[in-house]
């Protein structure tokens, strides 16, 4: 019983960070909260698979990342049939836009949205969530070299996107 509550307590303290990661991956806030809710539900259902003593945050982030991949794929399929994917036109339209100007969440999310999925997840984990290269590589099940080169491409593209007018 106590173990059960501890799991939910820990999950509750993770919520702000999980939402942030979801916002880093998703194209808008509504999608991000859907993803967060799905992740929580999945984590609760598979709680027996989590090994106490290991990091619950990495475990939960992995669930979220896998769910995001699944939904992103099915959405891509749907959009291919229904309509061409919309361009993130709002990026760079802000008249104040300059590289050092404050950029709000929406603009950053729109810029992130334009990165290929495999770069976006690496940027979100390392630059936004603060995971180390090795931790991120383990979480994603990738060699550390792959993570590091994707991070270079992702952040370079992102710099151009948030800097462009």
């Amino acid at each position, binding site marked *: 019983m106590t173990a059960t509550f501890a799991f*939910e307590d820990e*999950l*509750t303290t993770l*919520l*702000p*960070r999980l*939402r*942030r990661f979801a*916002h*880093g991956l998703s194209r808008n806030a509504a999608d*991000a*909260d859907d993803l*967060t*809710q799905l992740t*929580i*539900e999945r984590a*609760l259902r598979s709680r027996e698979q989590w090994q106490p003593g290991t990091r619950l945050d990495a475990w939960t982030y992995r669930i979220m990342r896998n769910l995001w991949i699944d939904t992103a794929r099915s959405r891509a399929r749907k959009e291919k049939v229904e309509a061409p994917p919309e361009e993130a036109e709002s990026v760079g339209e802000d008249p104040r836009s300059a*590289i*050092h100007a*404050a*950029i*709000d*969440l929406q*603009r*950053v999310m729109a810029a992130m949205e334009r990165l290929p999925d495999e770069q976006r997840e690496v*940027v979100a984990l*390392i*630059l*936004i969530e603060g995971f*180390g*290269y090795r931790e991120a590589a383990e979480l994603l099940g990738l060699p550390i070299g792959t993570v*590091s*080169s994707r*991070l*270079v491409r992702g*952040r*370079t593209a*992102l*710099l151009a996107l*948030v800097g462009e007018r």
Partner: protein
Amino acid sequence: MDEQFFAWLDGELNPEEAAEVEKRVAADPELSDAAAEHRALAMQLHGAFDPVTQAPIPDRIRSAVRPPSPVTELASWRQRRQSGRPAVQHWAAMAATLAVGIVVGTMVPTDDGSPFELRGGQMVAASALDHALDTQLASAASGDTRIGLTFRDRSGAICRSFENNASSGVACSEVGHWRIHGLFAAPEGQDGSYRIAAGSDPNLAALIETRIAGEPFDAKQEAKARARDWR
């Protein structure tokens, strides 16, 4: 700008490697600029997402972790009732009767899977619902049926509230079966799992309040009652 440059920027190098890259950057204005730009980018990214971590967690996410329990719902219902609106109770009892009428009238159980059946002119739990009422504790992971409160009613019988995708209600133990004492149809167009996460029908809390004698059972009392076959 190579991977080592960025690894240095992210603090991923050991002290010797870091010192080496630092020297290289200091000697190269282009690299120094790049370092400043990328540091600014990292800070902007962090800052941009701050509002997300500082904002209150939306209710639907909070209750996905910990669905509101029927016990707290009953408590909050009682609180609301004490602060006025005394008529709700009667309305709820009427609504319950009405719901039973509608359910009996429109879906008189015919197939084997129905959770209700008529016995001697009374509606009783059948199949999966009967089984859940007999065996399932409130703490059970969600199946099709979720058990809420277990309590003694004013006649001394043990009653339990239940909820599934289609309906919620209260059933009380009688010899050989669970008699349905109130039934509410799930609001239309709402997915069951979301409804549960969002909390039970206030009508259900009101109905429980009309029947309950004393306080609802805690987990221990519930398990004990099950061991005694709900008598």
